[in-house]
């Protein structure tokens, strides 16, 4: 019996030991050892794309100076109105220029009267020069009215001969400067604004606005009477050379004709209303 017990006990002991060893080895198997693995796919690394080049913005080309513009109480242009030699006949080459002049006149309705003034150099007979400059100014006026549709009531013409030279007549260059046609603002609507300045805030407030006609240049006969195309005689003394252009030049300072505004009033420029 005892031996049986012992056998049984021994058997139990052995089986228990085997179980524990198995457990221990299981634990040891989970601890330690190596797991080998490889990435399922490669990581893709794309370089950061370089910043898109800034769009090339075309630099706006500086606006060319207008061919014709109303400035300082006159119509300014760099070119010359071309006349046939010793005649008051405008060459077709000047049609485009006269068209642009007409456009400026039309776009500035505040200009009520424009004086077209012809000038000559001192070369030749003074009387003849005066007549020719007058006729040329009239020819220009006529062209603007008939071909460009400018209101004749807004235009007047006169000729000064060599009376108002802008350069001494001592060289051909200077004489050329004196041969010219000018467009002077004779009358214009001027808007006068009476402004009060707040002494504390310094803010300006318009108290009164009024528009009044301002006479800058005395004009002679009305345009309708003066506008007749005239062709000068070729027998007369040559006041102008063949193909002689009449150059627009600096107008006499119209500023002198400006009325002095009251101390509290701000007169706008005669040419453009100040808003």
């Amino acid at each position, binding site marked *: 019996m005892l031996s049986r017990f012992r056998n049984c*006990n021994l058997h139990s*002991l052995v089986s*228990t*030991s085997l179980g*524990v*060893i198995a*457990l*221990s080895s299981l*634990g*040891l198997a*989970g*601890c*330690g*050892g*190596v*797991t*080998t*693995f*490889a*990435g*399922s796919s*490669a*990581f*893709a*690394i*794309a*370089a*950061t*794309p*370089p910043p898109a080049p800034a769009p090339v913005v075309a630099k706006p080309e500086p606006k060319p100076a207008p061919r014709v513009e109303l400035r300082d109480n006159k119509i300014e242009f760099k070119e010359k109105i071309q006349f046939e030699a010793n005649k008051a006949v405008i060459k077709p080459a000047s049609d485009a220029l006269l068209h642009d002049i007409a456009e400026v006149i039309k776009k500035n309705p505040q200009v009520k009267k424009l004086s077209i003034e012809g000038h000559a150099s001192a070369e030749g007979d003074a009387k003849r020069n005066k007549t020719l400059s007058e006729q040329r100014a009239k020819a220009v006026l006529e062209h603007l009215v008939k071909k460009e549709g400018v209101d004749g009531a807004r235009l007047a013409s006169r000729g000064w001969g060599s009376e108002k030279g802008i350069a001494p007549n001592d060289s051909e260059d200077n004489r050329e400067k004196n041969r010219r046609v000018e467009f002077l603002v004779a009358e214009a609507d001027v808007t006068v604004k009476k402004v009060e300045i707040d002494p504390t805030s310094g803010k300006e407030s318009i108290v009164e606005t009024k528009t009044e006609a301002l006479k800058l240049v005395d004009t002679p006969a009305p345009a309708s009477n003066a506008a007749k195309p005239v062709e000068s005689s070729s027998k007369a003394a040559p006041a102008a050379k063949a193909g002689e252009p009449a150059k627009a030049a600096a107008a006499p300072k119209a500023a002198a004709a400006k009325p002095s505004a009251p101390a509290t009033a701000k007169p706008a420029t005669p040419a453009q209303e100040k808003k």
Partner: protein
Amino acid sequence: MKSILSVAMIAGCISSAVGCSYAARSPENYRDDTQAALASKNDAIRACYDGVLKSAPGAQGAVTVNFEVETEHGTIGKVEVDKAATTAPEAVAECVTKNIAGLAIAPPDARTGQGTFSWNFAAPKAPSKS
């Protein structure tokens, strides 16, 4: 005799339990956890690569590295470039090695990991001349 054996067995079990975390991942889980850790460095690797391209425009290709994941902290170490499987210049490969060394997976695994991973680097296309 029986009690002696029992005590010895229990002690053996306790010792094995203490020395081992038992967080033993399957190879797939080990790979996925490691891959996730590596992916967290992709932005840094890209930045490094962008820098390389400044001095070596057009540098690109594959980089394959072998490494170990240690069991104590789950840290990636012993990173080595597999030159046979690497086509990218050394500077590009360095972008990988220096960025992934020291990464760790959590929790650490009971078993050492031996991983092999690859990165494909692509340089931007040069603008076509027309």
